[in-house]
């Protein structure tokens, strides 16, 4: 495409990735360099703003004139299924303050640093067991199904009080919710089903005094059964898909960057920083955070009017050279803490302390427990999750 074409043609989002499956779509990088607040087109032909610079996105995510409420005029959706997902009882991720804060604060104490730190021995034991089971009597496996998904699923089940035996069920529903290929009707059915499942579970806990999050919510007597169900569904889905995909993709990244893998094995003190770098480099929430303007505002010198939608491309921001020198290189030793992989502002990821602990433990157990870890398939044949809300790989055949 020549420069002249670009100025007349409006970019359709989500744009396709280029040659490297770890890099954001090249069109987003170009937008960040030449036109950081630009107009883009959605599947239904409507156009919205796209932000790509680190500083602009940080500023935008703290601006209360940009709403996270999917029912407000102009809110951008990437497919009919996404529209259904963002408007049908989506809990506090799709609400604004003060209602958002009221609901979120019912959960903040469950994810504080201290509490998550105290879970580390349990998470480590689960990870070690999974590794033992995966490696017993064989020398190859699919990392996605045998380790990456089970680990965070087991942990979030434990926290929520959801029986892990049901994982095939909720992983299937969650896949439908997060796939761009799902129709609005498929999303509606899957969401109703999952909400009913959590509602029944919560009801069954009413007369017991378990310590898990769902039990606590039902005993608070402040929430309707529907509110508990949507909150539980949000935690269940957000709590396993994200960490699972980060785990597989981080391992793949390290296998493709053996010098970085070697550094990490030689200096375990680098693990914490390496996880931040992986979050930055991979930016698995790859199709933009969505907001809509409820009042006029100006960002990056551009006037955005009330009722106009905005997509914040955190994957482009995490490769912004002004925020991260040599941003396209993986460097497990860099200070990547300013990344926006968990978002920013009042909606910044509630589960981030848990996600960090799980990722640090998963990487440690895998790279140090499998000194001969390698890919068991040509890199070119690995199926990437381009069509999913959360990026990653559908499978990752490994050997050791």
């Amino acid at each position, binding site marked *: 495409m020549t420069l002249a074409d670009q100025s007349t043609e409006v970019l359709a989002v989500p744009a396709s990735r280029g040659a490297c499956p770890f890099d954001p779509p090249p069109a987003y990088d170009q937008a960040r360099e030449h036109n950081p607040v630009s107009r883009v087109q959605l599947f239904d032909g409507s156009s919205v703003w796209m932000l790509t610079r680190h500083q602009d996105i940080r500023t935008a*995510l*703290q601006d209360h004139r940009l709403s996270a409420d999917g029912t407000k005029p102009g809110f951008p959706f990437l497919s009919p299924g996404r529209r259904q997902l963002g408007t049908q009882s989506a809990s506090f991720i799709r609400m604004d303050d003060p209602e958002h*804060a009221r609901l*979120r*604060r019912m*959960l*903040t*104490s*469950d*994810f*504080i*640093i*201290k*509490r998550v730190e105290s879970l580390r021995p349990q998470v480590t034991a689960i990870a070690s067991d999974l590794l033992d089971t995966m490696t017993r009597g064989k020398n190859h496996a699919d990392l996605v199904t045998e380790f990456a998904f089970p680990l965070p699923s087991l942990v979030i089940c434990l926290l929520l009080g959801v029986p892990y035996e049901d994982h095939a069920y909720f992983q299937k529903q969650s896949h439908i919710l997060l796939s761009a290929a799902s129709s609005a009707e498929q999303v509606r059915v899957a969401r109703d089903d999952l909400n009913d499942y959590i509602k029944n579970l919560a009801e069954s806990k009413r007369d017991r005094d378990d310590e898990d999050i769902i039990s606590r919510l039902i005993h608070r007597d402040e929430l309707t059964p529907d509110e508990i169900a949507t909150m539980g569904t949000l935690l269940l889905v957000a709590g396993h898909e994200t960490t699972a995909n980060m785990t597989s993709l981080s391992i793949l990244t390290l296998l493709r960057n053996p010098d970085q893998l070697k550094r990490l094995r030689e200096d375990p003190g680098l693990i914490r920083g390496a996880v931040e770098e992986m979050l930055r480099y991979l930016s698995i929430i790859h199709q933009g955070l969505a907001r809509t303007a409820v009042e006029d505002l100006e960002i990056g010198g551009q006037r955005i009017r009330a009722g106009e939608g905005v997509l914040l491309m955190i994957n482009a921001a995490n490769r912004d050279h002004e925020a991260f020198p040599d941003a396209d290189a993986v460097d497990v030793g860099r200070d990547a*803490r*300013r990344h926006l992989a*968990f*978002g*920013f*502002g*009042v909606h*910044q*990821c*509630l589960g*981030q*302390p848990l996600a*960090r602990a799980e990722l640090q433990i998963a990487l440690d157990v895998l790279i140090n427990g499998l000194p001969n870890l390698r890919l068991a398939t040509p890199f070119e044949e690995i199926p990437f999750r381009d069509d999913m809300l959360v990026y990653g790989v559908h499978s990752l055949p490994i050997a050791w």
Partner: protein
Amino acid sequence: MVSPAEDVKLRVVADRSKCMGAGMCALNAPEVFDQDEQEGLVVVLEPEPSAEHRYAVRDAVNLCPASALRFEKDEA
């Protein structure tokens, strides 16, 4: 913002009404910030952090997603 290198008394102020409990402060400057067990919101352990912790506090101020933390010169 006040520079953490300045040789003056610095005071850390947290606005709990803005805090969203994401824990970036307790993670990055654990000597100075904690979160309470009931609400999960920020608690300042050391309102006048010693020089050795000032850079960590500056990082925490910058990393706080909800702009709930401030560094102030102590006027007293």
